[in-house]
């Protein structure tokens, strides 16, 4: 009893010392280092740390505050006194804590420099396999406590009982919390507390706040398995604690926070995944040029229907044979229901296909340097495995593509098949977040770029001798765009059409005035008509719609009016801006300072 409460005290002092460290100027004194024994805490283990002390020290003050708030929240009667106690103990303890912190900060760069330092999960319930069901019950007894450090310490001990009460309450709440060490792309690390209800999206938001990065949609949490040489991004809707619970205790796996443009590539350039002509390299050129309007309608078509459309994907891939180092080439097809292959001597019709794998119980990973490790034919490998499998096993499927483009198509295709609409929802949330955070500053450039952009598109971009700007219907919903496009083309054709119509055809027609000067599209049509007429073509334009069948077009880049015309669920400005806006480079150098300032402000409040 006495032991454990002292332990808690110990922990508290450590925590508070850390706080003080941040609020006050650094003053390192030479005190004996505090006892590194793990305190009894409500979080059962932390990810990426040798031990809990280290992880706690690495926590940032917001998290510490949150933790403190958790701890004190339930002590209704003695709340004041607890805080008092905190203050007291912090005054006594900050020296030791600061020392510890400096120890840590010295050690950390080492670990990242080599990047192979065993930064495993430090877990304190040795009896339980992951995921621990009820960690606190099975905790081993903490080791003997250290000598009492000071007189004041003993006085504070009485108050520690209250804290213990709080811990008990927390235990009841059973909210599992992890302290996770996240590796940043500049080789630094951040530690944050993740509770079991948090999704990857929440954690990302948290990290955005901490790092003051540009919040763009490419940021992701990324898990790396050094042992298997595989990696993947967390999907934004995934529960982080759940995923990390699958890691073993002594794992070398790491969580990274970095930008990967592959994450949402399909939403930025859907044509590369949906309209790709397999194997034809030259198509790439034209695909890149698809204009925003078409992209949007393609996305809407693929993701907003009753059921999503999985990109048609098929081709020969190499499959690593179970337990062997040889790779066999097979013809694979992606369908919404799974990956299939064509058995020997069969055709690729649906009825002959054999199921290779279904996605329900597997995650998809990129394989890195499998050419070395497994003698893969190329380095463009992807891996399918049950998330719980952590070691080499015959249940892990290795596949290898010919080139990076194919690899990305397969990985994205599988993710679309596995996650469906959720992926698109995630993306829209990410865009909204990015838009909220930093779009406003970039809006000016986006607007300036916008009207020029569609002119490169294939629809309006044929030739514009008369200098007329094509109507840029930026964020009109896809349906509308379709109609509008046809309306546009028909508008132009109309006068020509009439010349070819048989007299007396009953056709509802409203008198029209052509307000716009003739556009190049029309001319091309005219010449076509002339060419065809002698061949016995009776030209009939079925696209001849009345001009006014559509609501009037909005003026090109007026955000407010356009957003109101969007299909529900789409967020106009951010959707638009993500495609052209050039993202500000991450301000990493300045980051550290900013963090510090903000933290201080917070604390001062």
């Amino acid at each position: 009893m006495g032991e454990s409460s002292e332990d808690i005290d110990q922990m508290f002092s450590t925590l508070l010392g850390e706080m003080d460290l941040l609020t006050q100027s650094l003053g390192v004194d030479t005190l004996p280092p505090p006892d590194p024994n793990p305190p009894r805490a409500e979080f059962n283990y932390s990810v990426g740390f040798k031990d809990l002390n280290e992880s706690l020290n690495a926590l940032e003050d917001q998290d510490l505050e949150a933790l403190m708030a958790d701890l004190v929240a339930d002590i209704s009667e003695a709340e004041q006194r607890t805080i008092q106690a905190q203050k007291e103990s912090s005054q006594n303890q900050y020296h030791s804590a600061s020392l510890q912190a400096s120890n840590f900060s010295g050690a950390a760069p080492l670990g990242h420099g080599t990047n192979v330092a065993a930064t495993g999960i430090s877990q304190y319930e040795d009896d339980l396999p992951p995921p621990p069901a009820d960690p606190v019950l099975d905790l081993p007894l903490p080791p003997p406590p250290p000598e009492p450090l000071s007189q004041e310490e003993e006085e504070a001990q009485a108050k520690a009982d209250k804290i213990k009460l709080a811990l008990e309450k927390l235990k009841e709440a059973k909210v599992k919390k992890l302290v996770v060490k996240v590796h940043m792309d500049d080789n630094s690390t951040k530690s944050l507390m993740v509770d079991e209800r948090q999704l990857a999206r929440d954690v990302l938001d948290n990290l955005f706040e901490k790092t003051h990065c540009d919040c763009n949609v490419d940021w992701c949490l990324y898990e790396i398995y050094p042992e298997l040489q595989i990696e993947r991004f967390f999907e934004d809707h995934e529960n982080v604690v759940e995923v990390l619970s699958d890691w073993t205790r002594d794992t070398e796996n790491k969580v990274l926070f970095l930008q990967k443009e592959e994450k949402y590539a399909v939403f930025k350039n859907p044509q590369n995944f949906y309209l790709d002509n397999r194997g034809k390299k030259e198509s790439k050129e034209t695909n890149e040029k698809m204009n925003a309007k078409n992209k949007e309608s393609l996305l809407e078509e693929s993701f907003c229907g009753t059921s999503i459309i999985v990109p048609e994907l098929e081709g020969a891939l190499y499959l690593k044979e179970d337990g062997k180092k040889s790779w066999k080439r097979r013809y694979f097809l992606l369908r919404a229901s799974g990956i299939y292959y064509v058995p020997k001597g069969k055709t690729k019709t649906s009825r002959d296909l054999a199921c290779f794998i279904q996605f329900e119980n597997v995650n998809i990973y990129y394989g890195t340097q499998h050419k070395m490790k497994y003698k893969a034919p190329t380095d463009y490998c992807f891996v399918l495995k049950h998330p719980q499998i952590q070691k080499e096993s015959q249940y892990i499927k290795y596949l290898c593509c010919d080139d990076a483009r194919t690899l990305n198509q397969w990985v994205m295709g599988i993710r679309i098949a596995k996650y469906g609409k959720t992926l698109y929802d995630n993306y829209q949330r990410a865009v909204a977040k990015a838009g909220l955070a930093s779009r406003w500053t970039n809006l000016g450039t986006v607007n300036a770029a916008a009207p020029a952009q569609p002119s490169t598109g294939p629809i309006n971009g044929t030739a514009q001798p008369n200098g007329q700007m094509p109507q840029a219907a930026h964020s009109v919903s896809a349906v509308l765009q379709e109609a509008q496009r046809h309306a546009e083309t028909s508008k132009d054709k109309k006068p020509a059409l009439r010349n070819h119509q048989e007299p007396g055809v009953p056709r509802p027609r409203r008198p029209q005035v052509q307000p716009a000067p003739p556009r190049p599209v029309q001319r091309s049509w005219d010449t076509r008509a002339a060419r065809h007429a002698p061949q016995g073509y009776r030209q009939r334009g079925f696209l001849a719609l009345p001009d006014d069948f559509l609501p009037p077009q909005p003026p090109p880049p007026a955000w407010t009016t356009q957003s109101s015309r969007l299909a529900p669920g789409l967020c106009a400005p951010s959707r638009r801006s993500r495609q052209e806006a050039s993202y500000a480079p991450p301000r990493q150098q300045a980051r550290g300072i900013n963090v510090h300032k903000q933290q201080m402000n917070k604390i001062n409040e």
Partner: protein
Amino acid sequence: MAGMKTASGDYIDSSWELRVFVGEEDPEAESVTLRVTGESHIGGVLLKIVEQINRKQDWSDHAIWWEQKRQWLLQTHWTLDKYGILADARLFFGPQHRPVILRLPNRRALRLRASFSQPLFQAVAAICRLLSIRHPEELSLLRAPEKKEKKKKEKEPEEELYDLSKVVLAGGVAPAVFRGMPAHFSDSAQTEACYHMLSRPQPPPDPLLLQRLPRPSSLSDKTQLHSRWLDSSRCLMQQGIKAGDVLWLRFKYYSFFDLDPKSKTPKKKKKKKNPVRLTQLYEQARWDLLLEEIDCTEEEMMVFAALQYHINKLSQSGEVGEPAGTDPGLDDLDAALSNLEVKLEGSAPTDVLDSLTTIPELKDYLRIFRPRKLTLKGYRQHWVVFKETTLSYYKSQDEAPGDPIQQLNLKGCEVVPDVNVSGQKFCIKLLVPSPEGMSEIYLRCQDEQQYARWMAGCRLASKGRTMADSSYASEVQAILAFLSLQRTGGGGPGNHPQGPDASAEGLNPYGLVAPRFQRKFKAKQLTPRILEAHQNVAQLSLAEAQLRFIQAWQSLPDFGISYVMVRFKGSRKDEILGIANNRLIRIDLAVGDVVKTWRFSNMRQWNVNWDIRQVAIEFDEHINVAFSCVSASCRIVHEYIGGYIFLSTRERARGEELDEDLFLQLTGGHEAF
């Protein structure tokens, strides 16, 4: 008025005699002769006809059909001259609405009165309004296929023909809902039955019938269907349809708008959704799959079969239980729960109160087998405890308080049934993930009851749920139901039409899969696979399950492609043109490979040359495609393209109203020829 004459009887105005037959196109019909002039208005002529007939009757639906010109004279203010009618015109004074027999997507026949004078588009809209199918623009009518004379006689058992021909719908207003159905259905027991037929999924077809029905064996067979579509801009009369003819009503355009209103317009919750559209779409999808109009893989077929089974079970139990009004899915669950309570009390006496308060667990002696390399050990008896999501086994019950031989957390594991009812083998194969890989373990149960309970537990545990979960009971029920299915259905290779024991549970699995799987699998092989797929869908409500079925159907790569045989300009062989809602696909006729895809979004215009039956399409970047139509008229291709473009202009904001003019402009336009 016309018919002024002198005392001698000579007509002095330029009037002439016009003969009008009364009734439908029947040469023997009675006729009346009127005296008219060229200036007479059609309205006046109609009045005269009615006066001449001198019979008390409601003539409001009657109009004049001009046989030679194949045209209705509907403009009552037009004069005969304006129409160009002379004395030799053969005119029929007949009803505009006539009975036809509609073959619905669920293959049931329904007699109703359809408009023979309006363009088909409007006629279909009226039919759909009567049947309460939203978005009629997606549907159209097909001619019934010509029946082969010889085969005709042997089969064709007496079929129930539903009749809605007496029902008249008031125009303009949306039909009110009364007793859970549109008011016009609640008039009589007969119409009520009709509504049930429309709104509830039909039981699976007899597998024998399924084998007999024609199935397309090649792509060119699949083009046959699409040659029978009727023109949507012309009326039925103009297309040679007669009263009493059989027509098929089908979803023509595979672009289903607002199919899942729940998820998208949560505000409209109070408006009760009408199930007819969803049900009929489900039926069309189901028949598409059963008749192999669309191909799918084995795994996909199992999911479809499981969904059909589930849907059938729900719709049947809904019928037995509450009438209309409540969610049949919930009913079913409740029923299953109470059912289970009885069952559990009977088989394994447990304290109901106790089971409510404590975490349920299963403990029993089971035989366990762990396949390993170099082992000859078979099944061994163990004391097995299943608590929450963890399975532990011990040498015997006495050692249970101690350490188990092994403990497995079943979360995320794969559960595969390995059952042979006739062989009394009830095994559960578990593939349990661990950091090292998957470990395989077999549990062998003694009987069905035990199996069902453990199986249900394993399944829930694999999804991270415990047996305290509310779905546990229904899961057990579903497994038991499936086992009994296996017992009855496993008898023979499908030639056992379900006799008296064709209850809700005793189903022939062959009725759920396409015939090629009937050939490939024995029923007892099929059942466990369907069961396996069923575990993922067992908790869906009726509407959800139907929607899931439709979604899975839509996810098939070949979904929504209408095939037409064409010959491309410059090509010497026939090829297939596939028309989908967003693209045109050129397909090799022999191999079935996709040669080229063009998307509608890149299309600029298309032209039809009606004389040489050629369609020319221009895409962006000066890509031009021209082809002549072989298997169907180019008008059908043209209508498909125009129709899909029209459908893509629909907007949620506009709701149900339709821009009919636009549709007809996009799909019509050949009248001059």
